[in-house]
């Protein structure tokens, strides 16, 4: 089943300069009882966004109208912890299409790529500067060019290369799905099974 294609994105950024943000923070377990993929965005970072009585925490970045955009810029080791794909669904449902960090947890990165959310890894120092820049000027625009595998600060920042597996890149750019691919090689899978027996 085809997904939304990703080529070039130009957007403002939302900064989250915390390290080790785990999936329990991204979407707390008590919101995992849904049986569909939709609607998780409402509860993205729930316990940071709202206080105990359900009022908005005005100092949390998602409640700060100064910041907006489809790019989340987060501290090192983003997405550690549980394998819940709900974390990625919450981030995409909220409206993000890219997460930038210096380091991602493995399962989170796989889950992102399987849902059209692009994890962009930049060096630690670059990330620090970027966070400082966004803080100084919340209207800072960035450009993500997936084809060229380049991330840059607009209008004239030096582009920086990011890594992505060639297969996953093609899937994202063409909006393709892993399951379609696996279903298309079913004969090969059956041959493999037979060869083991």
């Amino acid at each position, binding site marked *: 089943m085809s997904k939304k294609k990703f080529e070039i994105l130009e957007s403002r950024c939302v900064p989250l300069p*915390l390290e080790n943000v785990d999936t329990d923070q991204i979407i707390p377990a008590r919101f995992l*009882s849904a049986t569909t993929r939709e609607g998780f965005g409402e509860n993205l970072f729930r*316990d940071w966004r709202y206080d105990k009585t359900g009022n908005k925490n005005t100092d949390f970045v998602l409640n700060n109208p100064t910041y907006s955009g489809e790019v989340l810029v987060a501290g090192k080791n983003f997405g*550690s912890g549980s394998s819940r*794909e709900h974390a990625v669904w919450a981030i995409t449902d909220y409206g993000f299409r890219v997460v930038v960090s210096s380091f991602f947890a493995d399962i989170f990165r796989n889950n992102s790529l399987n849902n059209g959310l692009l994890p962009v890894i930049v060096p630690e120092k670059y990330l620090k500067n970027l966070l400082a820049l966004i803080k100084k000027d919340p209207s800072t625009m960035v450009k993500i060019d997936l084809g060229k595998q380049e991330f840059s600060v607009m209008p004239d920042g030096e582009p920086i290369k990011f890594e992505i597996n060639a*297969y996953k890149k093609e899937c994202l750019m063409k909006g393709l799905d892993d399951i379609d691919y696996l279903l298309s*090689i079913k004969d090969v899978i059956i041959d493999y099974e037979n060869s083991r027996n």
Partner: protein
Amino acid sequence: MSKQTLFDKIWDSHVVRSIEEGPDVLYIDRHFIHEVTSPQAFAGLRKRGIKVFRPEQTLATADHNIPTKDQDKPIKDEKSRIQVEQLAKNTAEFGINYFGLNHPNNGIVHVVGPELGYTLPGSTIVCGDSHTSTHGAFGAVAFGIGTSEVEMVLSTQCILQPKPKKMRINVNGALGKGVTAKDVILYIISQLSTGGATGYFVEYAGTTFKAMSMEERMTVCNMSIEMGARGGLIAPDETTFEYLKTIPAISGRADLPQLIGKWEKLKTDDGAEFDREISFDASKIKPMITYGTNPGMGMAINDTIPEVDDINPDTSASFLKSLDYMGFTPGEKLEGHTVDYVFLGSCTNGRIEDFRAFAKLVKGRKKASNITALLVPGSKLVEKQAREEGLDKILEAAGFELRQPGCSSCLAMNEDKIPAGKYAVATSNRNFEGRQGPGARTLLASPLTAAAAAITGKITDPRKFL
């Protein structure tokens, strides 16, 4: 042939095809599912109009969301009930074996798989749950996956997966009195940090692991993910085979001698190379406790929380935020600090040996009056065995109650929540903010340390009681 690690041997023999500059198509022998991460995958199958490819290789249990009391009555929370009913419906429709609530084999997915003999050496195992690494204790390549991948396995029995790098963690020597497998893994994570093994698949080797029981090995492998590792495994040996022989589904197999012959070959070749290798000395490890909000923030129980100056300046903001959440200060000593809750259970420490250890320590003593205790067996079989061994009586005499199995307070999706601001010594695997309920403060430790806290009402070195 070149020298191979155990991980290479298992992984390579399950590669159906390698995509050029892409991931491997990895064949999955066993797939476990539960109510929380599977509904959207079944919805995907329906949307595509396809069936489950190999239903007999998948096993389902309800664990994450279920109550641990009155399991014979309908689940009160409506959303949880719907999720469990949905799993029953999905497994019936797609022909998958399901251990629902009240089934004698019900329990936490990572406790049930091994105890029923579904987890075998040399196999590939996945589940939509990051603690699937538990099964690595049997010498299997086992790891957690997301829901899109659950859908891949249901539809083709394969997933697309880049091969991780390899790390070996050696621990040698005998453990001191009161030092358990949980302390060993908490120690390793505190040394490596919570992202220290990201991108790696870990093999645990050395005399310390060799001397461990299967339950203890499962505790170790279980927490591999807490240092970011894709999974962790231990080469199968006599201990593994003896354990497997006690399981009816295995002991009855006519091909058991051949199987064991095959399993005996599952080890890393001498001279095989790892991308990273580290070693620790078992005698240095003490009973551990965590003080922060990730499992890497752990220390010996009689130690003090680090000072800000001891922390990498880049992480000091996160460090202070974490201590603020916990209500601790840098340099503070935790021993003697009041505790409100004790949780014994989860796929890390909800097995029979954990209940034996806890019961042994509290035997003849009394639960502290300020403590609320949640003692939750990992499965129906664990519960049954605990009762058969009379552990329930020992616990009751000391003022405790044995509950019914489930994930319970490990992730607090059911009503077993720790109230905001309260301290819980928990034998589970995660101390994240809000993991045990909004505002809950979790201190991870071994069942012995949990037992010591339960009778003193404070953070207490369990060695005082041994």
